[in-house]
C-alpha cells in the first residue's frame, strides 16, 4: 500500500503555488470584462488554438484521470475502450457547434434554445436535468480533489476538497469565461505533457507480458470480451458522453463563444487529442495486480499505481496533472451553470427586465452559491466517482434526441420533447438502481428515442424557424 508519497510541506507548496497562479491570472484576464457577453462568453471571439485547448481541457477531468482507471479496474479492456469512446461526444458535437452558432448567433445558453424551439414545458424539464447533471458533476469534481490529496499526501479528504473548490470559485469569479478558457490552454499543455511522460515511464517499468499473465490468472474477467457488465457499460458510456456534451451549457457556451467557423474544427481536433488519454490513464490500472496494489476504493487506483510506478517525483507530476484537470473542468462548469441560472431562471422567471449589470451580479453570486453547494454535498463521500457520474447519465442521455431533432428538424413538439426527457430520465434512474450504474444512460436514451419517434411520426408539428430569430 502506497501512502503519503508527497510530504505535507510539498503538497502545500504546490497547492499554494498553483492556486495563486490561477487566481491571479483569472483576475488579470477578467479585469476588463464589463458586460455579460464579456464575462459569460469571452466576447464571442475565441480563436482556434484557445478553442481547441478549452474543449479538450474541459473534457479531461476527474473523469479521465480518476474514473478511467477506476472503470478499467472494474470493467477491464471494455472499460478502458468504452471510456475513450467518450471522445465521440466531442466529435459529434462538432457539427452541432456550427449549427448552434448559425441559428443562435446572439444566444447565451442551451436553455435559450430549448425555450425558443420547444417552449416552457420542455424547457422546465431540460433545466431540471441540466442542473442535476451540473451539480452531480461539480460534486464529483469536489470529491475527486479530496480523494486525490488524501491518496497522495497527508492532507485529509475534507481539506483537499475544500482547497480545490475554493481556488476554482475564486478564479472563475474574478475572470469569467475568458479566464476559464485561458487557464484551460495552459492546463491542457500540462495534461498532455504529463500524460505522455507517465505513459513513457510506465512502459519502461512494466513488463506487458507479466501484466497480462497476472491479470489473466487473477482477474480473468478484465480480459474477457464477453464480460456481461462491461458489455453493457461500453455503449452506455458512449451514449452518456454524447448526452453530457449535447445538452450541457458548458459546451453550448463554448460553441457560442468561439469565432464563426472555429467551433467545428476545434471540436474535431479536441476529440482526436482527447481519445488516447483515457487509454493511457486506464491502462495503468491493469498493472495494479502485478504491483500488489488493491485500493480502498476503486476510484483511488489511478494515483496509487502511478505513484508506485514513478515514485515521489511521479506522484508530484500526477498531483499537478489531476489538479489541473480538476480545475479546468470545475471552472468551466461553474461558469456555465451560473450562466444558466442567471440567464434562464433569474432573467426569464424572476426579473424579465433585469439590466446587464444586474445579471452579471447574479451570475457572480451564483458561482459562489454553486461552490458552497458543491462543498456541502462533497462532505460525505456518498459513493464512488464512477457511480456518481453515471447517475447523471440517466438524466443527460434523455436530452440527446430532443436536441438533435430540435436543432435539425421542425416536427418535434414541446410536449414530445418534454415527455421524452422526463420519461427517459425516470426509466434511466430505474435501471440505475435495479440493474446497475452501467445501464442508466442506455435505458434513458432508448425511451427518449421511442417517445420522440412517436411524436415526430404521429403528432408532428411544423415549427417555423423564423421564430428562432432574435
Amino acid at each position, binding site marked *: *500500500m502506497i501512502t503519503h508519497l508527497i510530504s505535507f510541506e510539498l503538497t502545500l507548496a504546490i497547492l499554494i503555488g498553483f492556486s495563486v497562479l490561477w487566481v491571479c491570472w483569472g483576475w488579470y484576464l477578467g479585469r476588463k470584462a464589463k458586460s455579460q457577453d464579456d464575462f459569460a462568453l469571452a466576447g464571442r471571439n475565441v480563436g482556434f488554438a484557445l478553442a481547441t485547448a478549452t474543449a479538450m481541457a474541459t473534457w479531461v477531468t476527474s473523469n479521465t484521470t480518476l474514473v478511467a482507471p477506476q472503470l478499467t*479496474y472494474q470493467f477491464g479492456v471494455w472499460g478502458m475502450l468504452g471510456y475513450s469512446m467518450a471522445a465521440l461526444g466531442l466529435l459529434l458535437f462538432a457539427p452541432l457547434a456550427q449549427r448552434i452558432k448559425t441559428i443562435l448567433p446572439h444566444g447565451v445558453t442551451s436553455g435559450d434554445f430549448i425555450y425558443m424551439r420547444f417552449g416552457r414545458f420542455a424547457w422546465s424539464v431540460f433545466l431540471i436535468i441540466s442542473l442535476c447533471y451540473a451539480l452531480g458533476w461539480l460534486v464529483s469534481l469536489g470529491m475527486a480533489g479530496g480523494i486525490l490529496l488524501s491518496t497522495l499526501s497527508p492532507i485529509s479528504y475534507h481539506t483537499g476538497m475544500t482547497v480545490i473548490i475554493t481556488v476554482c470559485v475564486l478564479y472563475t469569479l474574478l475572470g469569467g469565461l475568458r479566464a476559464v478558457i485561458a487557464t484551460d490552454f495552459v492546463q491542457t499543455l500540462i495534461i498532455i505533457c504529463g500524460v505522455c511522460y507517465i505513459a513513457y515511464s510506465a512502459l519502461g517499468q512494466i513488463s506487458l507480458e507479466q501484466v497480462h499473465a497476472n491479470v489473466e490468472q487473477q482477474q480473468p474477467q478484465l480480459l474477457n470480451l464477453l464480460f456481461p457488465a462491461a458489455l453493457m457499460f461500453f455503449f452506455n458510456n458512449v451514449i452518456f458522453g454524447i448526452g453530457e456534451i449535447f445538452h450541457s451549457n458548458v459546451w453550448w457556451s463554448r460553441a457560442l463563444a468561439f469565432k464563426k467557423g472555429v467551433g467545428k474544427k476545434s471540436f474535431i481536433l479536441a476529440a482526436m487529442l482527447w481519445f488516447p488519454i483515457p487509454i493511457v490513464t486506464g491502462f495503468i490500472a491493469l498493472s495494479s495486480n502485478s504491483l500488489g496494489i488493491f485500493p480502498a476504493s*476503486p476510484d483511488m487506483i489511478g494515483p496509487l499505481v502511478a505513484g508506485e510506478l514513478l515514485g515521489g517525483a511521479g506522484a508530484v507530476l500526477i498531483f499537478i496533472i489531476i489538479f489541473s484537470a480538476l480545475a479546468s473542468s470545475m471552472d468551466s462548469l461553474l461558469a456555465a451553470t451560473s450562466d444558466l441560472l442567471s440567464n434562464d431562471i433569474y432573467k426569464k422567471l424572476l426579473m424579465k427586465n433585469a439590466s446587464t449589470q444586474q445579471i452579471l451580479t447574479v451570475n457572480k453570486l451564483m458561482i459562489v452559491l454553486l461552490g458552497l453547494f458543491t462543498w456541502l454535498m462533497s462532505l460525505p463521500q456518498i459513493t464512488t466517482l464512477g457511480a456518481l457520474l453515471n447517475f447523471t447519465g440517466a438524466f443527460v442521455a434523455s436530452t440527446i434526441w430532443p436536441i438533435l431533432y430540435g436543432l435539425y428538424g421542425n416536427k418535434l413538439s414541446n410536449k414530445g420533447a418534454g415527455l421524452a426527457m422526463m420519461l427517459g430520465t425516470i426509466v434511466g434512474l430505474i435501471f440505475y438502481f435495479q440493474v446497475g450504474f452501467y445501464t442508466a444512460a442506455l435505458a434513458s*436514451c432508448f425511451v427518449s428515442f421511442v417517445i420522440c419517434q412517436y411524436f415526430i411520426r404521429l403528432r408532428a408539428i411544423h415549427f417555423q424557424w423564423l421564430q428562432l430569430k432574435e
Partner: protein
Amino acid sequence: MSQFAVAEQVVKEGFITLNVPHEQCVDLCTHMSLSTANKQIKTIEVKELKSVTISGLENGNYQANFFQKNSEIKKTAITFTVKHHAMRFALTLFILGGILFSTLTIPLYKLHKKTNKHDYTSN
C-alpha cells in the same frame, strides 16, 4: 458443490469492496487471502486499509479471510458470491446500444450535410 454454503452478498459485476474487520483480528488485520471452493487465488497485504477493492472475478463462491501475519489463530471470513448478469441480457443491451449509436450518427451526418447546403433558418 461449494464449501461456502451461505453467501452474504451477490455481486453481478465481478468487483467488490470489502470492509477490513480490524477489530476482529488480533491487533490489526495485515493480510487478506481470497479463495474459492477449489483454490486459493491470492493473498494481499491490507495493513491499515479500512477497505479493499478486488475486481475481475469469475462466477463462483468466494471467501475472504482476514488475519494478522504470524498470528493466524484468529481469522475473520467474509463470504460472497459472484454471479454475472445473464449473457443474453448483456448482449441485448450491447446490441441496443450499437443500434442507438448508429441511429444517432447516420442521420446527424445526413442532416448536417443537408443544412450546410440549405439553411433552414433562411426559409
